[in-house]
């Protein structure tokens, strides 16, 4: 067993923390959160220069050939700094999918551009049912000649407002088994018939409604095998859940650090509030939640990295961390009191992220059901 970070990972972690602290101050976070686009093209360019956008792509696609665990460590730091932007949707939802399931041509076309910061991607999976099961995919792609016409409404699509391409999950065949007949398409976001509307959300995280009104795509845009896309979607979802956990662990750690520092400094009744047992126990419970979350996340990330079956570990991590981050962020709010309730304070940025992260890619109950299933219950 080796539960430590490698030297390279430590370096990545440290440089990410330093870079983000410097280049993505909370002032910028706040500004981006309130903007329409939700990201800074300058920061995006710098992230590309640091090799973050192509971190997990092999060198021949312009990447650095690092693994998923490295990506998780980077995401942890991004969560620590609540970095806004389409990194997650581009690299995790888009890039990893193409890398895993795309053909050589698609990889050559998309991955280098992603790595260079020239292309933003996202995944359009959920629809008005807001669920993550195959039966909920109602968007239809109808085959005509060597083209497809896609029709349907995708909802809660992350960063679609700035995406160049959207991986769109659609139904290409109706059978009894809802998992059969699903195909994933790479859709140009500027295609005629595609309209994208920004939704205003709790986390201000640029989720969109994407309406596809007979959007035409070619056969070449199919990622993976036609009609057999569901296992691929499940794989994306699993990776996304684990990646999201890494982000959450970082956010929870930050919320804990902020609260502990405040508790040491803030004086009431003539002593630091951190000397009151109630606050101490709050902090201890927060530490418990952070400490408990980190290694189940790493284990799941490691399994994904190693290509081992990770269904159980991913579900364990997402089920637990979803709720743990929320508890930590809320406790932090309670420690900060009224000052934390102001828009100018930073802690609500974490609370909002915690709430959004709790739901996306399936909430705690959803993942507990997977855990039960995986345990053979």
């Amino acid at each position: 067993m080796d539960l430590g970070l490698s030297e390279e990972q430590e370096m990545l972690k440290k440089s990410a923390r330093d870079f983000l602290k410097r280049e993505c101050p909370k002032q910028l976070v706040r500004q981006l959160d309130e903007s329409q686009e939700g990201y800074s093209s300058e920061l995006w360019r710098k992230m590309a220069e640091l090799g973050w956008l192509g971190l997990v792509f092999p060198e021949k696609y312009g990447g650095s050939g690092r693994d998923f665990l490295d990506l998780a460590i980077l995401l942890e730091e991004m969560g620590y700094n609540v970095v806004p932007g389409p990194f997650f949707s581009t690299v995790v939802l888009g890039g990893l999918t193409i890398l895993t399931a795309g053909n050589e041509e698609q990889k050559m076309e998309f991955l280098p551009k992603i790595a260079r910061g020239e292309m933003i991607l996202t995944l359009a999976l959920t629809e008005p049912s807001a669920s993550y099961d195959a039966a909920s995919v109602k968007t239809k792609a109808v085959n005509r000649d060597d083209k497809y016409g896609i029709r349907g409404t995708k909802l809660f699509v992350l960063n679609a407002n700035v995406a160049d391409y959207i991986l769109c999950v659609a139904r290409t065949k109706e059978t009894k088994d809802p998992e059969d007949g699903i195909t994933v398409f790479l859709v140009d976001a500027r295609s005629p018939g595609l309209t994208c509307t920004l939704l205003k959300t709790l986390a201000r995280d640029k989720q969109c409604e994407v309406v596809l009104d007979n959007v035409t795509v070619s056969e070449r845009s199919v990622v993976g095998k036609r009609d057999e896309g569901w296992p691929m979607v499940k794989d994306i979802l699993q990776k996304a859940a684990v990646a999201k956990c890494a982000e959450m662990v970082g956010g929870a750690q930050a919320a804990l650090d902020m609260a502990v520092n405040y508790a040491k400094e803030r004086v009431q009744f003539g002593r630091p509030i951190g000397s009151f047992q109630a606050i101490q126990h709050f902090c201890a419970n927060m530490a418990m939640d952070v400490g408990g979350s980190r290694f189940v996340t790493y284990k799941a990330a490691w399994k994904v990295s190693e290509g081992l079956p990770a269904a159980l570990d991913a579900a364990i991590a997402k089920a637990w961390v979803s709720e743990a981050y929320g508890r930590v962020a809320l406790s932090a709010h309670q420690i900060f009191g009224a000052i934390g309730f102001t828009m100018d304070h930073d802690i609500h940025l974490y609370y909002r992220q915690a709430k959004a992260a709790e739901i996306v890619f399936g909430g705690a109950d959803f993942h507990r059901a997977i855990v039960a299933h995986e345990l053979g219950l």
Partner: protein
Amino acid sequence: MDFTFSEREEAFRKEIEDFVDKELPADWVEKNIYWPAGYGTLAQFEELSPQVEQFTRRLAEKGWLTISWPKEYGGAGLSYTEQAIFHERMSYYRAPAGEIATRIGGPTIMLFGNEEMKKEWLPRIARGEVRFWLAYSEPNAGSDLSSIQTRAIGDGDDLIINGQKIWGTAAHVSHYAWMAVRTNPTAPPHKGISLVIVDNAAPGVTIRPMMNICGFYSFSEVFFDNVRIPKRNVVGEMNKGWYYLMVALDFERLAIPIGGFRRTFEEIVQYARETKHNGQALSQEPLIRNRLANIAIQIEIAYMLFWQTAWMLDRSLVPNIEASLLKLFTTELSQKLANTGMQVMGHYGQLEGTSKWSSLYGRVCLGCLDCISALVGAGTSEIQRNIIAMRGLGLPPK
């Protein structure tokens, strides 16, 4: 025992409902996004002002704006149970029903103010013409109120005030500060505090509204720079402010938005009934049923503590522990309700009310934020637990 209401009480409830039905704007349910026990969206009552103004005037005409006041001062002279019925119904409809002046200022003046002060203030408050904001907290005096530093120094017939207040809800849309100041810096912290009324428009008062995380200007930083007020604006006796402040805590016992919990819960239940997933209503899912039932049960418990508090007050019993339990319980319930709402609504729970896809006017999204203010406002849950342990159960302080 008897858990039914008297005929008179039932009639009163009906009267309130008829009143609300007639006077509350039809689009109120859409426009008002108040979350039970939250403080973050309260200022909205003021921002929707023409509507609120009119409704408040009508309330004042009924004597309901000052429902807890005796008739001689322009109140309704009702029993506590009737007051509770009023608060329950008004909060159910999320209707404005008074603020600091009517709930704290007026009653305190009645108890401790001299005749001059009563004459000057009570009628205006009862008519809904003046609004107070609560100027207690300071940057370094939150949970520990006794350590306030804002000074008031005598100068002839006046007092001159210097210092800073913070967190007073709706200061920027009120007329006067209902304010605790230090008037004797050498006395022990509790014995050198006085209560004063300060005009927001007085020279030297600077109000800087702060946006809260719900996106509203609910509270402000307020600076007092040599602000001069007449000594007749001192409430009761000098240096007895701490005592008045403690007594005033009791006036808030029934000002719990109990009906708001039921209403919001009903809306979430309705959502769960109407939202189908793969042909099955959410309300049919065992986990969701279990969680909704759990909230329903806790709302019922809160109601029981609420009626019990009113009933005790009517019998001149002191509901010390009951009122604290009620406060603590509803505070935490506010957060549980938001959480459960989010579990039921999932992705939809995150949408703000302006979105075409949002349900329940985005209440749950905002509620998720506003419930935090319930946990930290007006005495944190931690402070409530201290009170229950020490005052209610007699545990030793040291």
